[in-house]
């Protein structure tokens, strides 16, 4: 049924044909209420026995019209809304939005703010990856890692809570700088956490990395080649696991990333196992960044002088950051008023999820959950 698309080089998702079923074929609806579709994703699977013949992701169950809301809020008013898109990485969302608006204004956050932003964004990346690790392992049937990873994530959320009072939807930054000055023991807390984290990551790896069943369940599953990944607009760890060494923190540095040394881990095979390894390695790198950053937080103001009322001059800007899940971009059009004329969010999960159809071909039902887990989607971001 996908022969036409094959000619064009790819099987693009085209909706599952439910009318003509071969013998032994069944249609299975996974979701929107399913334990491991990570929210309200619905996947229509056409199965031959347990093997996936065709698949279609049906999204939109969490659509709240965030982009429409943005057109009716002033620039600072909209900032809390972005936290609710990728709600497991709210800090990164806020960072992207604030920087995009700053770029639109032609303003720039002071050095202290940029370093603190980097620290919080990297902690958020670790938290997001920890949550991913736990749920992914749970999907594959390992019951224990989630409790270990939640234990560590809790430490990060405590730091967020001490910093801004909120744990999940933090709204940690302000356009032009930071919402709050850091608290007294901020550096100490962050350092202590980072020092403990290395051993903890080793612990997860002991449980999973060389576990025969884990390797068997993830290796060769959901393979995405580098060319496919680029053509599909896939970014983030999924792209890097396919062998493309591309990370916006290096390619087009923002915040204070260019000050720090870190590596961009990549893998070759582009399967679920490589995505796992890439994310684990990324956590280690993020830890290094945080340790470097927290060592020297420059003194100085935390807010740039941007005025009380934000009225960016007319024009448009596209600014993107490397979110935990991939390229998180904001395309903001200003008409010179206090409200954005248009805010377009380029959510990484949306594009990464698009690659699901490609990864799932020929997989088994059990692989489907492994693949969804390995993409690391958040439906709040996909549906906006």
């Amino acid at each position: 049924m996908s022969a036409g698309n094959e000619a064009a080089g790819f099987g693009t998702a085209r909706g599952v044909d439910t009318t003509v079923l071969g013998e032994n074929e069944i249609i299975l609806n996974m979701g929107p209420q399913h334990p491991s579709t990570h929210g309200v994703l619905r996947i229509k699977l056409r199965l031959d026995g347990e093997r996936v013949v065709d698949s279609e992701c049906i999204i939109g169950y969490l659509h709240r019209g965030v982009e429409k809301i943005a057109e009716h809020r002033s620039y600072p008013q909209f900032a809390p809304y972005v936290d609710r898109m990728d709600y497991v990485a709210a800090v990164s969302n806020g960072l992207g939005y604030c920087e995009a608006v700053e770029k639109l204004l032609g303003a720039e956050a002071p050095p202290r703010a940029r370093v603190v932003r980097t620290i919080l964004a990297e902690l958020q990346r670790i938290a997001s990856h920890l949550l991913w690790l736990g749920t992914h392992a749970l999907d594959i049937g390992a019951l224990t890692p989630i409790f270990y990873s939640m234990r560590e994530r809790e430490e990060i959320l405590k730091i967020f809570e001490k910093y801004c009072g909120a744990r999940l939807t933090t709204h940690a930054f302000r356009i032009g700088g930071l919402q709050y000055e850091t608290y007294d023991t901020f550096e100490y807390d962050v350092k202590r956490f980072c020092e403990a984290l290395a051993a903890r990551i080793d612990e997860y790896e002991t449980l999973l990395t060389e576990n025969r069943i884990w390797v068997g369940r993830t290796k060769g599953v959901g393979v995405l080649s580098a060319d496919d990944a680029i053509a599909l607009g896939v970014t983030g760890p999924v792209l890097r696991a396919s062998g493309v060494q591309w990370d916006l923190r290096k390619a087009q540095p923002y915040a204070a990333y260019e000050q720090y040394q870190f590596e961009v881990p990549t893998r070759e095979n582009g399967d679920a196992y490589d995505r796992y390894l890439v994310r684990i390695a990324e956590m280690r790198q993020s830890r290094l960044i945080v340790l470097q950053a927290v060592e020297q937080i420059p003194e100085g103001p935390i807010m740039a002088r941007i005025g009380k009322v934000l009225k960016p001059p007319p024009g448009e800007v596209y600014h993107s950051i490397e979110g935990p899940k991939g390229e998180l971009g904001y395309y903001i059009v200003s008409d010179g008023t206090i409200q954005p004329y248009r805010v377009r969010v380029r959510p990484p999960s949306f594009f990464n999820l698009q690659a699901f159809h490609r990864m799932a071909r020929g997989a088994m039902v059990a692989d489907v959950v492994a693949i969804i887990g390995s993409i690391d989607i958040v439906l709040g971001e996909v549906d906006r």
Partner: protein
Amino acid sequence: MVKRGGNDEDPPEKRPGDESVPDASSGASNVLQFPTSLKKVEPEAAAEAAKPARRVPGSAPAREAPPAPAPFDNELVQRLRARFGDAIGEVTIDRKQVIVIVDASHVREIALACRDDEKFEMLVDVTAVDWPRRERRFDIVWNLYSLTKNERLRLKAHVTVGATVPSVTSVWVGANWPERECFDLFGIVFEGHPDLRRILLPEEWQGHPLRKDYDILKQDTEWVREHLGIESGQ
């Protein structure tokens, strides 16, 4: 490493006076080399990335108010103009971002040229902006990114209501969902799209919410009544 003031740079532009500072992508000692070709880091690619920066004429310092969109020209633009002639409209630079206005009907060919000849391998996003007072009321925006050159490029086309835009799904398969989203929320029809259906809203929904004439409180009351069994979702 020397600290830079700008919180980001969008090549091909570069702030004047920044020449002494090594570009993050051109291989400062502590930084991994960027950009990369696929799969392998190639030093040549990194060297190449620095090139477009030198072509750029100077612009205002960063801390002042951003410049108004200014006309822009470089080799890339010239090549595109030479090849597509009138299909390439105005080319401007706004806040260090190159925006190329293109003729909607030639988008597929231009996109193909951008992908294959200019090495913009990745389609980052497809979206639209509604300007209801304009005659050609929609701006369709394609954000491109070149992994080889570490550059961004924005194609923009103005279209009228009801006009169809060629789909670029044959150029980048990744355009599938964002084009569906544009269709869903703006009602823009992409010709040649393999499966142009609503994606975020229910299939039977009437109206396109991101159009400016669609009020924020408005909804498809018929649909709500029928499917949710309530009078109004408000």
